[in-house]
């Protein structure tokens, strides 16, 4: 893409889904820190989906999805089972290919990147924890054989596992422990975009809080996080943007306040509150704009309840 051009789809997507103001325009080629500065002073890095469609033969899973999954933010994708959320995530590191449209990473179409480099920059942690080595330390080193024991320990700690796990047998791990080892293994390659498919499906509240903290650190460090989850509490705690994938369309469900600002509204249950405590009080703004929720408009598994609660609490907040 030449650097003077604006991609209408991208600009629209970014405006439509993340609330970034202004024209999103020229991206520099290449990745990392070379993302272009946008006219009105906001950086947009990360992933942009342009009119993405996936279909198998005659059956369209989804069509014409345009969205931005920007760096520095955690975007949660929610929706009923079987609408293609996992497929959407697999498009991001080219484990799957869209039937139409294209995906940009820092402004560069991902099909133009070396696919191995892409997969290191966009780290997908699959839903089902799949361990391929015998002991944990080797497992974490699969993508980075050069890691020292100390580095592996640090990664395990970030995933919420104590150092006693270093030499544990992988086959003896519980589902939740395996899920966190997979997370540490994915973090080892230092992805710029962290893509998590149901990261808390096997985790208890404390472990989920550790993952929430890790997500906060990743976005705080300028990385992007994209996650799919049915865990409404977790999504409410960690997500900056919530996108609903349903009926082949992706729509914005909610946008939370800027991190670091006073929360516009807070919808925590006890577990989420503990999660915050575990994070050392760095209160995350959790607000689902009540106006963004049209009751009854969506049925996203457990999400519905939470969004309603959140909406209600947002309203209470404003009234107070």
């Amino acid at each position: 893409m030449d650097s003077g051009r604006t991609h209408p789809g991208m600009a629209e997507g970014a405006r439509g889904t993340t609330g970034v103001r202004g024209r999103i325009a020229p991206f520099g080629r290449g990745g990392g820190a070379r993302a272009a500065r946008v006219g009105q002073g906001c950086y947009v890095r990360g992933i942009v989906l342009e009119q993405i469609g996936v279909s198998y033969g005659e059956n369209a899973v989804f069509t014409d999805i345009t969205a931005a999954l920007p760096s520095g933010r955690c975007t949660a994708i929610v929706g009923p089972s079987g609408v293609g959320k996992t497929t959407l995530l697999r498009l991001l590191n080219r484990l799957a290919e869209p039937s139409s449209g294209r995906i940009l990473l820092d402004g560069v179409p991902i099909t133009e990147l070396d696919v191995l480099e892409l997969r290191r920059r966009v780290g997908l942690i699959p839903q089902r924890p799949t361990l391929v080595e015998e002991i944990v330390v080797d497992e974490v080193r699969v993508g980075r054989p050069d890691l020292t024991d100390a580095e592996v320990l640090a990664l395990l700690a970030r995933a919420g596992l104590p150092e006693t796990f270093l030499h544990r047998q992988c086959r003896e791990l519980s589902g939740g422990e395996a899920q966190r080892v997979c997370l540490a293994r994915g973090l080892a390659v230092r992805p710029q975009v962290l893509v998590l498919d149901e990261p808390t499906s096997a985790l208890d509240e404390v472990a989920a809080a550790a993952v929430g903290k890790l997500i906060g650190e990743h976005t705080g460090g300028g990385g992007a996080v994209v996650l799919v989850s049915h865990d409404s509490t977790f999504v409410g705690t960690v997500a900056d943007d919530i996108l609903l994938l349903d009926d082949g369309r992706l729509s914005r469900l909610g946008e939370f306040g800027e991190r670091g600002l006073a929360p516009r509204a807070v919808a925590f249950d006890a577990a989420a509150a503990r999660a915050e405590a575990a994070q050392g009080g760095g209160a995350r703004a959790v607000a689902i704009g009540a106006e963004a929720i049209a009751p009854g408009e969506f049925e996203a598994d457990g999400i519905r309840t939470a969004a309603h609660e959140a909406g209600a609490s947002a309203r209470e907040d404003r009234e107070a």
Partner: protein
Amino acid sequence: MVQGLSVPDWPGVGASVLLVALAALIAYRQRLHLTRELLIASVRAGVQLVAVAAILLVVFRHTGLPGALVWVVLMIGIAGQVAGRRGAGLPHAIRSATIGVAFGAVITLGVLILLHVISTQARVVVPVGGMIVSGSMQATGVALRRLREDARAARPEIEARLCLGLPAREAFLPYRRSALRTALVPTIDATKVVGLISLPGAMTGLILAGVEPLTAIRYQIVVMYMLLAATALAALAAARVAERYLFDDAQRLVVLPA
């Protein structure tokens, strides 16, 4: 040596038909519903062997080494089809198998001929080539079947490695290894117990034909060694080719039919 051959003459062969009759009688009296099949199989075996003998006679007498090599190439083609069917479900299974068998057979037979281990007479090249192609075929079939099973069952593990930015070859390495192990172990085991548990074909044939055992084993040793090389080379080549077709340009494991 020809004078010393103790091979059944045609009347002898005719007499052995009595044994078929014996088996057919048992099948008939016991109502196994196998009599017809048994008789057809016996006739078919006779006709097939006579036909092959006629062709071999022409090859041995008139075409020399080139004719023998054409015969070996035909065998490679047939073996590729058979082994490829074992890997049915893999993309381009027959092509992978044929390339594997050809690779194992050409190198092994080439080494034997170039180093003058065996003579270039058609009557030597054809049966030795047959043993090599047959061994390569079995190893290739086993390797491809194992690859197909692993490519289906281990998709999550393979994709877990791909997700970490590992190239397809590395992500698939454990499965290629296990396919090769599975393919080679039978040949290695057969090599270990040769002479103790079974008297293999080449040696049996030579002994039956009146050759001294000490002479016969020289051939058998060469046969065992060449089979080790042929199976290893064939399985490796077939696995490498199949692996290339298992992953697309974007280092993705292709979807296999269920």
